[in-house]
């Protein structure tokens, strides 16, 4: 059924009233060379039944492997109540309703979300969410360049320890806006940005991005990095894992004065992996930068009768009011994902989230310890980590991964493609969902695969 309310007769009547022959005639002012061509590669539409069958088949391809893969999306336990409540009719919509007179429940939920994210990040303000962690970082970069009143520079320093996909996304979104991104290399022993390696008097820059933990799972020296950038007139953007913040110092407390902006991927807070999305991005900042913040912000106020109510606020930042001078062209948020994560955080509480983080950290340590005991496997970096770590193998990783896949195990994220110097290095992750038994069976399996490889080095090729 087409969701278009007008009948053909009505369309004809309207066209006749304004004196044109067809809908096409309404667009004849647009030169032909500016019109988009029909999309050749897009196949014909499918029925609901066909789509369901196709998507079921695709979902089956994911399988249900025992997974030690993280690298930006994390498998955490999601209490059944989270999606049971999220999918209630009162919350479940395809598009976030913002009308204050009709949507007090949704607005209050978004306000609660903002309050929780502000608390987790130790910063005064949170927006109502963005599309995902990578685009949130791109928005944070644009925001920092606008908000820096000390420096007119449009240079932003972004360490190579930031997720490679995030760096790519940032480049795509800000590359044509006159912003120059400069990558900082990491310390090969620690796997972190060594503050001592940073220049005393660098060329002027607008902002520094600090990941915590970084893409290798390694904890950065956030206090020293924050102060280094602030002392040189730059703003600081934290790109953080929200689960880790239950244990680590919030960005608002880094260094002498705290960061200016914090952002990250919200998926770990109650959103299933779902083959990569939808997820949501979060963005928080200091009060003084709020007018440079992109996205929707919900405020609490009182109505004419003095009763508490919730409404969109600070809308003069947004494109329906500021047009081309808006802080962003994002005028919505990931409402449904945020609903789930707000319920997740409310159910877990500060203590529950801390236990998730602590259990993940303990499991990852146990995994690294056991893997290190295998012949030919060693941790690549010597700095503390959160729930991921880089392990170097003395054999071709592609072969080992193939053997693991056959046994229905996802061993981790192979780093060679993104970091040529980390060929045969695997980024492994363990969250609270991994039992001692899971970890033991992964390590045993790896041990068998590695042993078999060594034994196979005989002069006679094994028959296939």
């Amino acid at each position, binding site marked *: 059924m087409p969701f278009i309310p007008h009948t053909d007769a009505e369309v004809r009547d309207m066209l006749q009233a304004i004196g044109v022959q067809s809908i096409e005639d309404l667009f004849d002012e647009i030169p032909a060379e500016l019109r988009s061509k029909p999309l050749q590669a897009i196949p014909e539409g499918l029925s609901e039944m066909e789509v369901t069958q196709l998507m079921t088949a695709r979902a089956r391809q994911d399988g249900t492997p025992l997974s030690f893969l993280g690298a930006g999306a994390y498998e955490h336990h999601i209490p059944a109540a989270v999606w049971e409540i999220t999918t209630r009719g009162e919350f479940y919509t395809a598009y976030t309703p913002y009308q204050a007179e009709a949507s007090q429940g949704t607005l209050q939920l978004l306000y609660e979300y903002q309050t929780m994210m502000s608390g987790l990040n130790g910063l005064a303000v949170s927006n109502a969410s963005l599309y995902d962690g990578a685009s949130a970082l791109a928005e944070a970069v644009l925001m920092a360049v606008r908000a820096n*009143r000390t420096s007119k520079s449009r240079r932003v320093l972004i360490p190579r320890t930031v997720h490679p996909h995030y760096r790519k996304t940032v480049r795509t979104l800000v590359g044509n806006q006159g912003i120059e991104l400069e990558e900082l290399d990491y310390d090969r022993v620690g796997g972190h940005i060594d503050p001592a390696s940073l220049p005393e008097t660098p060329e002027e820059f607008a902002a520094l991005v600090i990941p915590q933990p970084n893409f290798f799972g390694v904890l950065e020296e956030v206090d020293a990095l924050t102060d280094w950038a602030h002392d040189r007139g730059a703003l600081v953007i934290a790109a953080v894992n929200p689960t880790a913040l239950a244990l680590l110092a919030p960005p608002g407390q880094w260094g002498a004065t705290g960061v200016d902006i914090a952002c990250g991927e919200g998926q770990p807070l109650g959103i299933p992996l779902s083959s990569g999305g939808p997820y949501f991005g979060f963005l928080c900042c200091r009060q003084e930068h709020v*007018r440079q913040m992109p996205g929707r912000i919900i405020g609490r106020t009182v109505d004419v009768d003095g009763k508490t109510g919730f409404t969109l606020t600070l809308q*003069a930042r947004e494109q329906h*009011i*500021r047009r081309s*001078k808006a802080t962003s062209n994002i005028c919505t948020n990931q409402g449904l994902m945020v609903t789930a994560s707000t319920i997740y955080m409310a159910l877990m509480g500060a203590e529950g989230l801390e236990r998730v983080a602590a259990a993940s950290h303990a499991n990852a340590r146990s995994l690294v310890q056991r893997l290190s005991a295998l012949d030919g496997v060693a941790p690549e970096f010597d700095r503390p980590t959160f729930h991921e770590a880089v392990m170097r193998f003395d054999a071709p990783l592609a072969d080992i991964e193939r053997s693991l896949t056959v046994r229905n195990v996802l061993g981790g994220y192979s780093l060679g493609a993104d970091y040529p110097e980390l060929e045969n290095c695997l980024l492994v992750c363990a969250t609270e969902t991994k039992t001692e038994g899971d970890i033991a069976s992964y390590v045993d399996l790896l041990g068998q695969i590695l042993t078999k490889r060594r034994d196979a080095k005989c002069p006679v090729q094994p028959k296939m």
Partner: protein
Amino acid sequence: MSNVPADLKYTKSHEWVRMEDDGTVTVGITEHAQDLLGDMVFVEVPEVGRTLEAAEACAVVESVKAASDVYSPLAGEVTASNEALADSPETVNQDPFGAGWLMRIKPSDPGELDQLLDAAGYEAHLAAEEH
């Protein structure tokens, strides 16, 4: 008809300009402009030292109704900004030609002042805009 002081210069985009003894000019928005915009909730003024082109957007006045750019009446360098407006934007409503000033500019070409409207010219512009 709103108040249009005779000793000031004006732009068609509703800024006023007062020549000071030290060779700088003070800039604000007119009583008519603040009346159209309504209650101010936020004013963003330019940084001291910023170089402005004539007609460059250099400040933002945000009211309960709208957010509007303020345009520099002439080219020059910002020598002072009214930072007090950050905490009391309503001053622009209460005293637009006095305490509600936005910035002071050192004109790079004082001759540009002659191209601005005088009070009579601005009043005529307002009358024309009403039609």
